[in-house]
């Protein structure tokens, strides 16, 4: 979306750029890309659930650095704010609330491994194909005025991409309302069922924290 912005000062004269004489920024971009790719691979292959979430932090942070190297400062900080600061924290919260053993999880493997790999490779090929086909000979001029500053991003977002932006926000709103409806429905069903011994557990979520005795220390018993 950001690359497709029509206001980007793209240098169409690709002949000036050679692949065999990279600049410092290009080398850094490649190295950070390799680190990001490696972290992403470890994320999906490690058997330790919480480590997977922490490697996800590295992968998402690496993406933010890539945005920075492409002068898209605003997108980079939003990436850190939303993905590292909120999504991963939510993920870790969910893991700790349910199942976060220290060490390997024997069941942290999927029988659908090959199907998942096929889907992932197909999606990656499609994305790479589309991006390469669209931006084959275009180069971002990194030395000119910042192409991804907050002002430029805001102008292109609210001038050229207003409709997708609004459609996305309506979609998110629908997801939010859906989540509320689903959670209220589950609550109503549990209230109609016979009352549990500890009636506080129905109305408050915090007592259930102590109920999930899956942490290894609690399994081993008190020391």
């Amino acid at each position: 979306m950001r690359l497709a912005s029509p206001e980007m000062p793209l240098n169409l004269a690709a002949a000036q750029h050679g692949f065999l004489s990279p600049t410092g920024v290009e080398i850094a971009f490649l190295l950070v890309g390799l680190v990001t790719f490696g972290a992403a691979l470890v994320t999906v292959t490690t058997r330790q659930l919480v480590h997977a979430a922490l490697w996800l932090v590295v992968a998402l942070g690496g993406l933010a650095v890539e945005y920075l190297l492409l002068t898209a400062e605003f997108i980079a900080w939003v990436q850190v704010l939303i993905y590292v600061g909120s999504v991963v924290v939510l993920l870790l919260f969910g893991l700790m609330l349910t199942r976060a053993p220290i060490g390997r999880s024997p069941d942290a493997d999927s029988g659908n491994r090959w199907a998942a790999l096929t889907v992932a490779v197909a999606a990656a090929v499609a994305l790479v194909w589309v991006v390469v086909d669209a931006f084959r000979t275009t180069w971002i001029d990194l030395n000119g005025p910042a192409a991804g500053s907050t002002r430029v991003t805001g102008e292109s977002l609210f001038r050229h991409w207003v409709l997708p932006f609004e459609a996305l926000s309506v979609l998110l709103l629908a997801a939010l309302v859906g989540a509320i409806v689903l959670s209220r429905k589950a609550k109503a069903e549990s209230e109609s069922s016979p009352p549990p011994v500890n009636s506080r557990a129905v109305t408050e979520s915090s007592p259930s924290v102590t109920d999930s005795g899956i942490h290894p220390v609690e399994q081993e018993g008190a020391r």
Partner: protein
Amino acid sequence: MNDALDVALRLLVVFVVFLTFPLIVGQTEHKVMAHMQGRLGPMYAGGFHGWAQLIADGVKFAQKEDVVPAGADRRVFQLAPAVALLPYLLVLLAIPIGPSEGAVGQVLDAGVFFVLAVMGVGVLGSLMAGWASANKFSLLGGLRTAAQLLAYELPMLLAAASVAMAAGTVSLPGILHAFHWWWVPWQIVGAVVFFVAGLAELQRPPFDMPVADSEIIFGAYTEYTGLRFALFLLAEYAGIVVLCGLTTVLFLGGWHGPWGADGLGWVWTLLKAAILAFLVIWLRVTYPRLREDQLQKLSWTLLVPLSLAQIALTGIVKVVIS
């Protein structure tokens, strides 16, 4: 060469501020708390009113044995203090204390987003510590930290967005250049929401449920000893410095003051931040700890609606005056 020297000097100054200001806040807390409770506080270390107490504490922490529990996840356990501390160092780089180009570590185009994003990362340190300690109190502390962060990040962001709307920019020096005195009453609700949410994000009393020492024994930091524990404490006080600096810059006009506009702007910034830091200490001595459900209720039913109302007010005034 000159550029490299300039960058090195700025980094050095920010680093020195990072090492000294939290200690000053900590020492002030010792003394202010003591006097509010009818005590004297530290009086011996260093001679004059115990000024060297925290340095002595630091030496004590450095001498202690660094213990990693047998059942812990070693690497994550050891990495957590750094993850908790470093973000505040990075945030300090972006806070301007004066109007000139030399009074800020680095001018960032999207400064507001940078500081909020990086501050959010700091909480990962507490989460990592809570999980990797292999201790149920630590895990409970980590859970409470995560729940608190999720609840309070939203009002903090919305309050900061209101100022950014008013100024028409998300750069911190840019916001201060656009500042007028009547912004203080205009944005006062946002300021209170931002400050309270920031306190909650730092897990300072009365929002210290995640580290409640009388209930879950300091939460995520239960298993930490020595220097690593000191780093967590340093992160808390660096967080106070950062929060007070940010509230000053965003809502109280930073270097603007009734007089001394040229050259003395940094005094105003430091003075306002110091008053806010005093307020943080005062709140700790005054209020009892909020219960976990009261914490969540305060955020979702009070702070979020208030910050949304502030954004609406900002939008209306902005349209009327333009």
